């Protein structure tokens, strides 16, 4: 009764069946250091390339790991031929993040919601929608539901095996579906894939469409695997050396940061080989570079150690949005966000004025900048909240109410030439030659070049504050305090005034420790001499006893916190922004902490041109 069958090949989810490729590096984002970890000034270390900076530490760790133990039997790279990489790279890029059908900057997304998926599962497996819903509540994963239902129901005819091309093309069709009854069309397309799914294929198809593959695979692993696979493939039967592998992996990671497009990268890799990859795959305006991001670190000491006996630069972190502006004859002027999304439409008001800030000899460039909201009349920066009120799409230039200003800090490409191999100070010089300062439109980020770590102190605000309350911990911090309310002391009014909530800078050990120290200090009612805002009321109150040293990015006027109230403003206090715990100060008594008047002084001396 089963009818003749067409036979297809390629085992589809080869990779997904091997759930533990590499150990993902531990991600610690406790303290995000505000000093941008930029290339050192007189840098002759040429592998310290900009875009790679943030991945470098990690890749060293990874290298080490690889040397010491595994020979990676987990990824069956020899079984995957190269044509397939296009697919699994582009589709299975991130396990926890969005699975992509195209490079980020093309802005193509699948746009598949839960309802569409549920309908597709129902129609593909002959169940009612309600059955799908109830099963999904039970199993908590639509992928599992799809697989269970699919395996439970036979089909009349054996269906052709899914091929990678077929799945990838269908994903593309889904992302391109729009207009009337697009939901229905998507349901049909997805359903056809689920129907054809064998074994666990339906599960991974659904998860791919959901954007959660849950196989513990990060993009870096994919890049590593790609390098490894290519070298192994080329070695034909022989085992490549660790050096060869490491080199290939580094090259691929490096090239990918400059040209985040798997299609171009892999095509060139196959055509020109790994040795020539960097020569053929170069930075070009129009394709966003993966931005260099701040490197998370566990403690300030780690940062300080890194910069010891070095020249380095400190920059203000502007309260805006990262922007990468590209310009060339071919593409005109376009901009990208931190996530490589095209934001040209959103910022067309500044992009269109690029002629005003380009020097006459500047024809093509890629610059890295922060775009901030700008108060034209007061000539000062406005908070991020103001910037975020700007429209994202269908912006009409004459309707823009929030003006913006660029604070440019780097140039990656100028007049046909990549500058990534040049040190930062040279890049900065080129930046200043190639562009003209236009106040309120195009400014250079304020920076300071320093020789010693101590000088950073001028950039950070340090203060000593008293712990007066705490918030119950949730999630990872269940059982300990999750955050604390700090206060400064006002000797004139003889009261403790709330200054900030603090939740970062602690190790797990610290938190356990605080629980032990602070619990006995718990009081039922806040002291009458505690001054605080209702919205920051902590879950428990403490006797004023524990004194902490904290560092903050800067100070700002706050309607919520009460520090220095009446000094700078009649009814508003001052708060510490982005406070970080440094250490316990047993040597100081609560009354010896930073006083309200000192806080007020610090606020006034803040040499920022922000609105006041």
């Amino acid at each position, binding site marked *: *009764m089963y009818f003749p069958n067409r036979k297809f090949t390629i085992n589809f989810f080869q990779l997904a069946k091997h759930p533990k490729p590499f150990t993902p590096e531990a991600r610690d984002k406790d303290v995000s250091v505000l000093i941008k970890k930029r290339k050192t000034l007189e840098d002759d270390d040429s592998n310290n390339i900009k875009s790679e900076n943030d991945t470098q530490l990690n890749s060293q760790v990874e290298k080490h790991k690889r040397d010491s133990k595994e020979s990676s039997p987990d990824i069956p790279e020899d079984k995957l031929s190269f044509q397939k990489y296009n697919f699994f790279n582009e589709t299975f890029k991130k396990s926890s993040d969005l699975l992509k059908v195209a490079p980020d900057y093309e802005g193509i997304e699948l746009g598949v919601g839960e309802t569409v998926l549920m309908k597709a599962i129902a129609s593909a497996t*002959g169940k009612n929608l309600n*059955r799908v819903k109830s099963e999904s509540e039970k199993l908590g994963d639509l992928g599992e539901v799809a697989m269970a239902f699919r395996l439970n*129901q*036979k089909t009349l*005819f054996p269906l052709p095996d899914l091929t990678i091309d077929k799945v990838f093309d269908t994903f593309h069709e889904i992302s391109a579906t729009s207009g009337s009854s697009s939901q229905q069309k998507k349901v049909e397309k997805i359903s056809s894939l689920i129907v054809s799914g064998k074994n666990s294929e339906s599960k991974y198809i659904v998860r791919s469409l959901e954007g959660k593959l849950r196989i513990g695979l990060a993009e870096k692993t994919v890049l590593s695997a790609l390098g490894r696979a290519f070298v192994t493939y080329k070695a034909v039967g022989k085992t490549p050396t660790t050096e060869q592998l490491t080199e290939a992996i580094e090259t691929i990671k490096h090239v990918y940061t400059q040209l985040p497009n798997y299609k171009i990268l892999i095509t060139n890799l196959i055509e020109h080989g790994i040795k020539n990859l960097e020569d053929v795959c170069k930075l070009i305006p129009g394709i966003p570079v993966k931005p260099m991001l701040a490197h998370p670190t566990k403690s300030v000491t780690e940062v300080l150690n890194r910069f010891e006996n070095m020249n380095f630069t400190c920059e203000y972190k502007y309260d805006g949005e990262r922007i990468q502006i590209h310009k060339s004859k071919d593409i005109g002027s376009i901009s990208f966000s931190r996530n490589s999304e095209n934001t040209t439409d959103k910022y067309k008001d500044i992009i269109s004025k690029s002629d005003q800030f380009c020097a006459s000899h500047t024809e093509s460039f890629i610059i890295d900048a922060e775009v901030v909201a700008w108060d034209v009349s007061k000539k000062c920066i406005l908070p991020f909240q103001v910037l975020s009120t700007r429209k994202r799409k269908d912006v009409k230039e004459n309707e823009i109410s929030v003006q913006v200003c660029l604070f440019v800090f780097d140039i990656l490409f100028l007049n046909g030439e990549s500058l990534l191999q040049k040190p930062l100070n040279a890049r900065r010089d080129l930046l200043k030659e190639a562009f003209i300062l236009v106040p309120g439109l195009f400014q250079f980020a304020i920076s300071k070049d320093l020789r010693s770590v101590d000088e950073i102190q001028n950039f950070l605000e340090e203060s000593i504050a008293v712990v007066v309350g705490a918030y119950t911990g949730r999630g990872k911090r269940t059982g300990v305090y999750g955050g604390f309310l700090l206060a400064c002391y006002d000797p004139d009014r003889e009261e403790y005034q709330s200054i900030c909530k603090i939740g970062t800078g602690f190790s797990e050990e610290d938190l356990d420790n605080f629980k032990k120290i602070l619990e006995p200090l718990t009081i039922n009612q806040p002291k009458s001499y505690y001054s605080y805002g209702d919205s920051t009321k902590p879950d428990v109150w403490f006797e004023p006893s524990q004194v902490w040293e904290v560092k903050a990015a800067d100070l700002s006027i706050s309607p919520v916190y009460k520090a220095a109230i009446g000094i700078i403003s009649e009814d508003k206090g001052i708060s510490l922004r982005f406070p970080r715990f440094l250490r316990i100060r047993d040597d100081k008594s609560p009354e010896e902490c930073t006083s309200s008047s000192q806080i007020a002084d610090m606020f006034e001396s803040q040499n920022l041109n922000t609105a006041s």
Partner: protein
Amino acid sequence: MLEARLSQASILKKIVESVKDLVSQANFDCSESGISFQAMDESNIALSSFLLRSDGFDPYRCDRNLSLGIKFSTLSKILKCAGNDDVVIIKYEDDNDILSLVFKDQKNERISEFSIKLLDIDSEYLSIPEQEFECNVSMSSSEFSRICRDLMTIGSSVVIDATKEGVKFSSTGDEGNGSVLLKQSPSIDDDGRKTVGTTVNMTEPVSLELSLKYLNNFTKASPLSDSVLINMSNGIPVLFQFNVGDIGYIRYFLAPQIKDDE
């Protein structure tokens, strides 16, 4: 060209109603021997096919084999415009993308004419081999509808167990279980009138689990026939057949579910 005259519009109406929720479109294959179609639902779980032999029409003329792609929702809407006792004339001129339908009432006083745009449907024709089943059940179609409807309130699938004793339909749900047993019964009731009894002819006992969602779709063909033939063998698709008088049939194939104990 094709010209076929069917004396009762209701037959065509019922056929279309019984498949339109299962499949959205199909190629109607017309040949000297009659009109048929075969269509699989998108999940590949169920297939329906129908045949109306040429002797069911009067007159019937089909010069060469034709494949006419029709969307069921369109056809259904147009057939709603026909009275049950109307005569239907189906016409197709060669090299045209239109099928026309003419409805005439019995007195030949009201004549309506509709046309449908034909679609180009790319579907593979699957040849279904005739085969012997381990078990053939014949039962009342209205009884079958009722059982499927009743069990749907319990669960989402039904297990059909056919033994010498009779045929048992049972369903399990989160909130309870239910089953209906039909024993073999004669086709004549106590008063000697003709009814539709239940007969089971088998070489092997058969037990299969089927999705009720599909069965409740198939039962829409019940108005076409007093009885339904259920042909089953263990582990392979089940055939449900509703005969349209003696001029044709509508068949459904349904792939079974995999039972937990398999």
